[in-house]
Structures are given as structure tokens and as C-alpha cells.
């Protein structure tokens, strides 16, 4: 095991929080600090680095329990504002997916569809305190005789509302381009033909998993800021992977780790959780996710102080390779600094860039988490179990 000059434990850091002496900065602020003071001194001075992101995260949804009715119903078909939820969980438990479209939505029958209302909107409406129409049907049993039920409900009326997202906070992501000669509508937005524009996601140097590339501090049980509430990393996210192309700095050069996250919807707020409608693609949910990274040693400081210049993403053709798997898996690489400049050089052309992850809001998330930690309202937690692929570092 490598010997580090600087070594901090979660217990020490949390004691500093309780004593009002903790030093917290954001993942953007740390870049300059590390450059000025060097990794060791910066690791001595700074205890926690906060990361943040605010981006559409399609693999999201909520477990809702609407309480027993009188007479009781074993609901198998459930709708919230005509958006179907999955009702085959016990009697009154259901799961509402963020990307569900309202029943009767024309979808892409006249392409590109508008997808004006779906699961993401129901979740947003509930969090905003709005009334939502619940409708359900059951096949009837001796113990659950009722066949139909309808009621207007608010978030407070629901017995339980747990946001549980199978895959959030992707560690790196594709840069999307369209090499074909017709416009395409994707979850990476509208991509104009013949490389007329590219789109990208993640908050780059503010992005949680980018700053802990080998999952040394982020694991199962890590307390996080989720949609305004204190939530937790519940599990590795679906599609989580770690044997990926990495740069010399250890940073994945393609999509890698992911997190399954959980939090109480009743503690969330519309400032940090918003429904989105992608023309021609569907409905989704944008979420604020903030993760504090304790600076456990100077190696951690090396990771948390990486900047957009050090982070690289692959350019993927969403007209061919992404949908069909044919052709080259990636057409090139660009840094997040280049992407954020507004245009990239690709095949001798200047291609304008647009992002779906709001850097301005990612900053807000990291700043807000910094304030919460300083005030003692948020205590970083040591994971109970590492994510697959985690390297030694957890104390």
C-alpha cells in the first residue's frame, strides 16, 4: 500500500465540520488552489471538495405508495395524469418512470413528436406541490375486492414517494455528431446533418465521478445532494463499468462509472428537479446531483483538481454507430475545454457545440453543497461498500 504524506479520515473531517473548522471548496475552485500550492499542501489545507451536475438523467423514476383505499384495491394498472406507472408491485406500490409518455400521446407517429407530458412532468408536478390525478384498476381478490379507484392527490397525500434512479451521474459521456445527410432527433438533442453541430453532456471539471475516477471515496452509502434532498448512493448504477479506456491521469476517455441513487421526493424542490421534453425523442427528468469528495490524501487532490483541459470525451456518430453499431465506434476525441469554448475543430471544420448539462447550475449545486457542509447541515458519509472497480483509498 502506498504511503501518503497527507492522510485524513472521515471521522477527522466530520469533527472539523462540527467544530466549524472544515475547509470546503468546489471542484472548480480547487483547480487554482492546487496549481498555486501543489498537491500536498493543497491536500493539507482543503478537507472537502464539492462536485455538482444538473443534467437530464433518463434512468430515473419514483417508487410511490398511495396508501390503502376503502375498500382495498390491488392496483395492477396505475396512471398519474394519464401517465402509466408500473403497478405490479404489491397492492398500492408502483414505479413511475421518468421517460413514460402520457397515454394517447402521439409519440413519433408524426415525426418528430413533441412529448409534452410524461413521467418526468408528473414527478416535477408532485415535487412542486401540484395536484395530480391518480387512477388505478385491479382484477379483484377476496382481500382486495375493489376494481377501480380515482383520486386527486398531492405529494403530501402519497404515503411514500421515493426517487430511485437506476443510473445517474455518468462518469463521462459521448459527444454526439450527425454524419448523415438528414436531421436527427435524439436524447443528445437535435443533430443537424453533415456535422453541422455537436452536443455534449456532463459538467466536466465539476462532475462527481470525474473527480473520483477510481471510486476511492464515492461508494454505496455515500450521502449526496439529490434534487434538493439528502440522498444516498444505493448501488452501482446500471451499465456501471471501470475497465475502460483511460488517460495517463486515470480519467476515463469514454462513459464509465454510474450511480444508482435514492432520496425522499418529499424533501426535494423544483429548483433542483425539472422535467424535460426532447422533440422527436421523449420525456425525461433533469436532476441536481452533488457529491462531496473528502480529500483523504494527496493522490485524491491530484484527481479532484483536474480541469476541463484534462478531461476528454469521444465523438460518436448518432446517425449510424450509436443506433446500429455499424461503422467506427468513435470518430475522434475532444477535451471539455474545447467543447465549452463554443466550437471544436473536426475534420478541418469549425463545428459549434451545445450542451445539455447546465454548467451554471452545476456550479450552483457545488456551491450550495459547500454551504450545507460548512453550516453542519450535511455530513459526508463513509461508504459502507465500494463500487465495483474501486481502488484502495477508502478508509
Amino acid at each position, binding site marked *: 500500500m502506498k504511503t501518503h504524506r497527507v492522510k485524513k479520515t472521515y471521522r477527522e473531517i466530520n469533527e472539523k465540520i462540527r467544530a466549524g473548522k472544515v475547509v470546503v471548496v468546489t471542484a472548480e475552485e480547487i483547480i487554482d488552489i492546487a496549481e498555486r500550492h501543489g498537491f500536498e499542501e493543497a491536500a493539507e489545507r482543503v478537507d472537502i471538495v464539492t462536485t455538482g451536475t444538473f443534467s437530464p438523467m433518463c434512468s430515473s423514476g419514483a417508487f410511490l405508495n398511495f396508501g390503502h383505499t376503502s375498500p382495498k384495491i390491488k392496483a395492477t394498472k396505475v396512471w398519474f395524469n394519464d401517465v402509466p406507472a408500473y403497478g405490479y408491485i404489491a397492492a398500492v406500490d408502483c414505479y413511475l418512470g421518468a421517460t413514460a409518455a402520457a397515454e394517447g400521446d402521439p409519440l413519433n407517429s408524426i415525426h418528430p413528436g413533441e412529448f409534452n407530458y410524461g413521467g418526468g412532468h408528473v414527478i416535477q408536478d408532485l415535487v412542486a406541490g401540484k395536484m395530480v390525478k391518480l387512477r388505478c384498476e385491479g382484477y379483484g381478490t377476496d382481500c382486495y375486492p375493489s376494481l377501480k379507484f380515482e383520486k386527486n392527490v398531492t405529494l403530501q397525500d402519497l404515503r411514500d414517494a421515493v426517487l430511485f434512479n437506476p443510473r445517474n451521474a455518468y462518469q463521462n459521456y459521448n459527444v454526439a455528431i450527425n454524419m448523415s445527410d438528414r436531421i436527427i432527433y435524439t436524447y443528445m*438533442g437535435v443533430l443537424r446533418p453533415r456535422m453541422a453541430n455537436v452536443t455534449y453532456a456532463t459538467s466536466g471539471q465539476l462532475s462527481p465521478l470525474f473527480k473520483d475516477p477510481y471510486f476511492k471515496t464515492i461508494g454505496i452509502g455515500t450521502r449526496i445532494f439529490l434534487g434538493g434532498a439528502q440522498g444516498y448512493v444505493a448501488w452501482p448504477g446500471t451499465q456501471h463499468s471501470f475497465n475502460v479506456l483511460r488517460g495517463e491521469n486515470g480519467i476515463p476517455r469514454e462513459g464509465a462509472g454510474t450511480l444508482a441513487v435514492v432520496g425522499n421526493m418529499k424533501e426535494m424542490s423544483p429548483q433542483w428537479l425539472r422535467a424535460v421534453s426532447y422533440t*422527436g425523442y421523449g420525456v425525461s427528468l433533469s436532476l441536481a446531483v452533488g457529491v462531496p469528495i473528502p480529500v483523504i490524501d494527496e493522490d485524491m487532490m491530484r484527481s479532484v483538481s483536474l480541469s476541463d483541459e484534462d478531461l476528454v470525451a469521444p465523438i460518436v456518430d448518432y446517425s449510424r454507430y450509436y443506433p446500429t453499431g455499424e461503422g467506427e465506434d468513435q470518430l475522434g476525441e475532444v477535451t471539455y475545454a474545447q467543447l465549452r469554448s463554443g*466550437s471544436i475543430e473536426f475534420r478541418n471544420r469549425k463545428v459549434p457545440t*451545445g450542451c445539455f*448539462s*447546465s*454548467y*451554471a447550475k452545476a456550479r450552483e449545486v457545488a456551491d450550495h453543497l459547500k454551504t450545507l457542509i460548512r453550516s453542519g447541515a450535511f455530513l459526508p458519509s463513509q461508504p459502507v461498500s465500494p463500487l465495483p472497480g474501486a481502488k484502495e483509498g477508502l478508509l
Partner: protein
Amino acid sequence: MVEEPITYRLIKDYDLMVNILRATIDPGKQGTMVVELSGEENRISQAFNYLEKAGVNVEPLSREIQHLGERCTSCTACVPICPTGAFEVDRNSWHVSFDSEKCVACLSCLDVCIYRAIEVSLQ
């Protein structure tokens, strides 16, 4: 049904500079074009007469685009799409701003904004 190459006629017969900002044209269906016309004023009026006779409905651009600040999250997806640069990112705050003076209501941004922070009002 319009059976003439109207854009060609505007240029050749009325000596107008035609800048097509947006066009939705399908054979056999109703199409729309948002164009910027430059030329002598009387030639423009003559051109409008020609268009109306040819069965083309001409309306001055009276659509107003509104950027709803409370819905916008400054993601920047709209910035590269706008042909006139009406959306700009502040390089310090990373907030997106909208300059309605630059906007020509071509509607390209409508499809791109996933937060539906852009609305068009017809007058």
C-alpha cells in the same frame, strides 16, 4: 396549389435578395417559408402582389419569441442553433441571455429547448 418557382421569380423578376431562414415544404401539402427580403420598396410591393396572385399568403413577420428566464437552466443547447446569435453565453457566469433585437423568429430554437423555455406568440 402554388405551381411556380416563386423564390426564383422573386429574385429574377423583382430583383430581390432572398434569404430563406426556415422552410417547411412537402409536395402536395401546405408549406411555409420564413424569408428576409431586401430590395427596392416598390419592387417589394410588386413582388407581394405577384405572390398573392400566385396563391401564396404573405404575412409580415409578426411572431415574437420569448425567452422564459424562470424556465431556462442555461444549458446552452440553443446557442449554436440560432442563425443570428440571439442567444449568448456569458463566459463568467455561464448564464444564457437572449437578445430579442437579433431574433428573426425563424423558430429553430423551439425544437431544441428541452425545458420549453422558449415560446412563440403570434400577433
